[in-house]
């Protein structure tokens, strides 16, 4: 079907670049490990580089923490826990967390710029979503510090001790906030490891923690790759493990923790379906699909990476989607016009490209935006696959890139059964103008977060987490507190 009302975005004019300046930020040439309130050199003397995925230029070199460094970080966290932190009045603990929130708000522009440099995400997203939400998370959980007993009527909530936290590269600062804020509010101390490709905003957060005057050792931030993470998970004196990342690693962690009495939360992969009914507001739904899969280059565990559209409107939706894809600007993450930034790393680009080949080998039809992409750095055009079947790997497996698999359905039950037919259950989307249908679908979709006529919305007050192989436990909201507490009495 040809769209008669298509806007001529290719009508001979272009956006002038509107790049965010970088003259207001400071990135040190080298970062140590933030342990016990100070930046210290790694025991091994080893450092690794963090690069800008949009230019492949080195931004900084950061320390590689060995298991000996992990041990010092856990010891510092234990000392802080046994010392000031667990003895402090809860309301005073809360004030420290409020300070972190306020300083993040004050330094928001700097954090947004560094986040886009280090991770490749569009500045519009880091500026309007990542950083403000991170500050909001600290603000929200700060208030819980002296109110925990109201969240668990009839029980006495008690802190756990030292939390070991491992976060991914897709929302570096925001994930640090999701992990640290509730842990501190509940009276724990933390050892946090950011992902090796995006360590910078976590290290800048260490500066914030220091400037906020938190007692030494309450927050420790150490950098490294998978072995560093494994050393945190396996450390005997860690009381709780919080992990966000792939389902594969999540499985390894759950096995490693078996029999240890450590508490854990795992926030893992997803393969969310956006289910679009014929009675939906189609233009609005198309925007939702675009936001669902192309937000943050599709590096989103809850991305709407499957589209399941009712047959009678399928052609129209796919055409409108293709038209819309032509308008998406892929390019400089620091440019305020950019819709899709750089793929986070060379290895992730390789993964995505292997799925693009696989999808075609499986017999699906691939369509990509025809717009130019930069020549240096890591980039992927927005991509959709049609003619896929439920058993295709591009339907079943998480790609973690701007790649959408499209299926159709006739009845609600068929749409539902397709939506639920993956090992994952993190999120889902429903598009219909009929309220009763929304609630029917939200009741039946086996996933932890369902968006109706919207997608990819996040708020500190709203719990997040998966069913099935998308993870264990919830983060955010009142329900996110339980992960960091033991309930007595």
């Amino acid at each position, binding site marked *: 079907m040809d769209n008669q009302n298509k806007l001529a975005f290719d009508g001979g004019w272009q956006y002038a670049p509107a790049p965010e300046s970088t003259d207001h930020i400071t990135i040190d040439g080298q970062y140590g490990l933030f342990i016990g309130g100070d930046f210290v050199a790694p025991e091994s003397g080893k450092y690794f580089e963090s690069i800008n995925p949009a230019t492949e230029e080195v931004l900084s070199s950061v320390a590689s923490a060995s298991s000996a460094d992990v041990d010092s970080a856990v010891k510092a966290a234990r000392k802080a826990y046994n010392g000031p932190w667990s003895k402090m009045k809860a*309301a005073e603990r*809360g*004030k420290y967390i*409020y300070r972190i929130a306020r300083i993040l708000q004050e330094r928001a522009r700097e954090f947004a710029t560094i986040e886009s440099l280090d991770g490749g995400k569009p500045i519009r997203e880091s500026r309007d979503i990542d950083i403000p939400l991170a500050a*909001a998370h600290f*603000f*929200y959980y*700060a*208030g*819980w*510090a*002296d*109110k925990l007993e*109201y*969240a668990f009527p009839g029980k006495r909530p008690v802190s756990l001790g030292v939390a070991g936290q491992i976060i991914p590269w897709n929302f570096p600062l925001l994930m640090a906030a999701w992990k640290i804020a509730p842990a501190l509010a509940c009276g724990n101390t933390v050892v946090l490891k950011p992902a090796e490709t995006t360590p910078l905003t976590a290290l800048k957060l260490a500066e914030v923690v220091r400037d906020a005057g938190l007692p030494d050792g309450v927050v420790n931030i150490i950098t490294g790759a998978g072995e560093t993470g494994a050393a945190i998970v396996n450390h005997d004196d860690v009381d709780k493990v919080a992990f966000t990342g792939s389902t594969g690693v999540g499985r390894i962690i759950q096995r490693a923790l078996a029999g240890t009495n450590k508490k854990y939360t795992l926030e893992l992969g997803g393969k969310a379906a956006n289910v679009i009914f014929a009675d939906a507001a189609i233009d609005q739904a198309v925007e939702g699909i675009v936001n669902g899969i192309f937000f943050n280059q599709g590096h989103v565990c809850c991305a709407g990476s499957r589209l399941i559209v009712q047959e009678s409107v399928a052609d129209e939706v796919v055409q409108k989607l293709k038209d819309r894809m032509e308008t998406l600007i892929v390019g400089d993450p620091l440019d305020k016009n950019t819709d899709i930034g750089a793929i986070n790393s060379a290895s992730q680009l390789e993964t995505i490209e292997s799925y693009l080949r696989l999808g075609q080998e499986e017999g699906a039809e691939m369509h990509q935006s025809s717009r130019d992409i930069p020549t240096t750095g890591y980039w992927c055009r927005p991509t959709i696959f049609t003619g896929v079947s439920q058993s295709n790997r591009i339907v079943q497996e998480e790609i973690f890139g701007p790649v959408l698999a499209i299926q159709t359905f006739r009845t*609600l039950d068929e749409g539902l059964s397709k939506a639920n037919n993956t090992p994952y259950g993190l999120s889902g989307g429903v598009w219909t103008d009929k*309220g*009763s*249908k929304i*609630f*029917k679908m939200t*009741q039946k979709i086996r996933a932890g977060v369902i968006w109706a006529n919207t997608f990819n919305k996040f708020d*500190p*007050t709203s719990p997040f987490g998966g069913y099935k192989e998308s993870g264990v436990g919830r983060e955010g*909201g*009142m329900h996110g507190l339980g992960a960091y507490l033991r309930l007595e009495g």
Partner: protein
Amino acid sequence: MVTSSARIPVEKTYKIYIDGKFPRTESGRYFALKDGAGAVVANICRGSRKDFRNSVVAARKAFAGWSATSAYLRGQILYRIAEMLEGRQDQFVAELVLQGRSKRSAQKEVLASIDRLIYYAGWSDKYQQIFSAVNPVSSSHFNFSVLEATGIVAILAPDDDGLIGLVSNIAPAIVGGNTCVVLASETMPLCAVSFAEVLHASDVPGGVVNILTGFKDELTDQFASHMDVNAVVYADHASAGKIQTKAADNLKRVVARTDNKWTAESAQSPYLISDTQEVKTTWHPIGS
């Protein structure tokens, strides 16, 4: 010729706070606040029933915007009030001392007031999660109950604690999205006026909090009977019967906060927020 170099201090005019402005009472009346030695400390506005009516108009006008303000923003604004008060501790301590408090007890009261604002700032986006419910009705409906601000809360502030008594009753009303009209302590009105100045510097929209000074005997009737006030909060046993009777004119919610030791932590709780909230239940069908 002037020979002394001593500087003459400038004294503050204590005014009332209506709709984000600091007028004098429309009545032109005053009462003299005296210190222990009988010396006049300040001339305080003796607010009138007309001042109260003007305040209710302002509070009603502010209600739509304030009650629709996001919980996060309301929380940040309450936090901002605390930040402003923190920086002006000395002024409030001095005023409490002028009104007969020991320095030590004044300091304690000011610090407790700041912490109380932080406490309620924290509740802004949480009390809803404590008091709301999804109700498992037997039919095929999604049924949920949420809290909403009741509207305008008229507060007769406690007499004894000029600052914390005031703060402890304003904060839970406004954090829940209500707007309010407050009668300050008659015997300790100074901090109330200065607190209005703090509110004014804290991004609290005009009309959300209106603060009057004056005589309780004269104004209590009006606080309890005004037909556009939705709830009345009082702290004084003596006027309880009268307030309850007058409140019945338009079925005001009546909240008694007598016998509270306001500086103690036991005087703070989310139930003070729910006191001035309505519960709204929505039914929505589930089906294809």
